[in-house]
């Protein structure tokens, strides 16, 4: 009943804008066409191509593609590696969300509402590493974090600690690769979230301050909901782009090892396609990965969007 009411209200509210919105269908399409063109050629077409390839056994150069139906998909479902990779992927997602979404969100909050001095300085500085390529970052970190002789190991030794050989340690490797990725992504996410948070009117925060709302509640009860449009963006991008970004350190540092402990869905597609030349299988894997994400996106559209504070 209430739900119903809300929906009707929403529809009516929409109607109010209807004329303004629909008056210019031609313009509406006109605005989208440039994007659409490049997407059609460089995204949708290749995607369809990949879907097509996923039904074949092929290695990209053999003159004949062998049609194998859903065999690639079946194989993928039966391969224990698939589940390892998916588990790793999930682990990456969780860690990246913590480091690249939650943490910069907090920092953006601290810089906008908690401290008054030195904001611009911090903003500039925290952003810096994000201009640097991950290839460079990976090389650097491979040195810095070298558990035998890197600076970190030397410092640790000074305190009587030994650094585990992370590059060959299950679990830890995911954490370290995520940290390396974080080094690059953090600053950017931070700046985007900061942009979102600046949209929260100062007065509203002041109102909460007066109520002696503790900082963490201000953050969770007010700032996050009110900047949720941007928050959502960074959330999704952290998952999607994060996984693509981690690709670089994986490739430079571990090549998916040890024993696939650092491989994720994206790297595995690459590995299958360009190291093992299982083009069909890799395509199927890519499609499945994408499908999983799209389901995630659908869930988001269906459920999360309702909780987001939008004006339009």
């Amino acid at each position: 009943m209430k739900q119903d009411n809300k929906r009707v209200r929403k529809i009516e509210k929409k109607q109010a804008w209807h004329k303004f919105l629909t008056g210019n269908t031609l313009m509406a399409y006109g605005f989208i066409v440039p994007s659409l063109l490049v997407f059609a050629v460089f995204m949708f077409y290749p995607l369809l191509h990949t879907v097509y390839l996923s039904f074949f056994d092929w290695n990209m150069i053999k003159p004949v593609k062998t049609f194998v139906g859903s065999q690639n998909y079946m194989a993928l479902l039966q391969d224990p590696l698939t589940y390892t990779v998916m588990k790793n992927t999930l682990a990456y997602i969780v860690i990246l969300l913590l480091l690249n979404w939650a943490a910069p969100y907090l920092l953006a909050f601290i810089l906008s509402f908690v401290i008054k001095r030195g904001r611009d300085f911090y903003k500039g500085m925290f952003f810096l590493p994000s201009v640097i390529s991950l290839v460079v970052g990976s090389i650097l970190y491979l040195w810095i974090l070298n558990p035998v002789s890197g600076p970190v190991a030397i410092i640790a030794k000074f305190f009587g600690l030994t650094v585990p050989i992370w590059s060959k340690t299950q679990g830890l490797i995911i954490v370290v690769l995520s940290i390396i990725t974080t080094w690059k992504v953090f600053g950017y996410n931070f700046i985007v979230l900061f942009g979102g948070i600046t949209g929260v009117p100062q007065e509203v925060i002041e109102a909460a301050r007066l109520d002696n709302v503790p900082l963490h509640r201000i953050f969770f009860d007010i700032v996050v909901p009110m900047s949720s449009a941007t928050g959502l963006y960074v959330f999704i991008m952290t998952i999607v782009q994060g996984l693509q970004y981690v690709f670089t350190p994986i490739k430079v540092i571990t090549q998916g090892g040890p024993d696939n402990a650092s491989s994720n869905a994206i790297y595995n597609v690459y590995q299958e396609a360009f190291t093992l030349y299982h083009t069909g299988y890799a395509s199927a894997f890519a499609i499945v990965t994408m499908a999983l994400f799209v389901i995630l996106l659908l869930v988001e559209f269906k459920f999360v969007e309702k909780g987001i504070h939008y004006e339009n």
Partner: protein
Amino acid sequence: GDSAANGKKIKIEYWHCNAETQGGKTVEQLVNEFNAQSKDVEVVARYNPDMYKGLMQNLQAEVATGKSPAIVQIGWAFLDYFSNNFSYVEPQKVIDEYFPEDKTFLQDNFLPNVLALAKNGKGSQVGIPYSLSTPVLYINRDILRQAGLDENGPKTWEELIVFANTIKEKTGKYGFYMQEPADNWAQQALLESNGARMMTNGKASFASEEGIQAYEAYAAMVTKTKSALHISWGEGVQSFIDGNVAMLYTTIAQRANIQKGAAFDVAAINSPAWQGKPKRLPAGGCFLAITAKTKEEQKAAWEFEKFLYSVEAMAAWTKGTGYVPPRKDVATAENGLKSFLAENKMMAAATTQMDGVVSWTSFPGDAGLQAEQLLLDVRDRILNGSISARDGLVQTQTKINELLK
């Protein structure tokens, strides 16, 4: 050909993966020299990052568009995959067809066992060996002395194990690191020198007793005595160079890098053998394959290859890269490497063990690359201690043989 008649040089592409730190400069220098002296051929060298694997990827994409370069460097591990999937011409065929004067060039200048390295399972001479490397043992003499060991290093694996353990005990530093890139090259040397064979009659056979024992000994250093380091290649080399690891088992191609970086008394010695057994050292590096399609290009390709395999060019190549020349005579010739080798003691470690060179196993068929990957995976598991060398090798061998069916 026609183009020559027109006064226009025919342009061919030479694909290599020699980074600046690994002979890139020499490639450029050789290509320039060749272009300067050739009347009708112009070579364009194209660098491909990420080694032979990266080159392979790019080649794959290139061929998919229907084009291909004229000459490519193919890593030994890709011998089988390349010959199965790409079209190439055997060099002798080009020679026979257009250059009768060079008919015996290959025979005359290459040892049969070296030439055989570039033969695939079906016996086709896919290309000509170009870069040849073998694994050698780099030692930090300072640490050896500190640990009271023979500063000339171990001769056998058994000795090496003792050395490593002693170093660990005496200095607290790691005794040994064996390279762990995304291939099993060094591990193959270890196993096969103990009498195991990676492959016998087209089937994986590394999990023989000899193979298992060798691997167990190696794994024990990592997991039991902790005298050997299990870490990625780059980190391992870094740790050797900055003096945290006493002995490094890796390719001779790293020589320049190590020599430049190491601030201690460094030496390279022959790869150790197992007590009383012959060494079998897989050849690293690459061969050159001709992928040119048209007659003109194939002809031009040979002209360039012939230049590359000249004594002077080979010598330059060794100087620039540390690879061992695959061709006869280069080491001893005055215009070859004579003086260079005399000065460069570290190089000797590789040149003096060429008799032990065998081909680097490349598993046949479409699943070959995956088989190699399985071996990598099990290496991590064994060295992590999560599986015994025996179980790991046996299981993996079974799996690979399934795949190869």
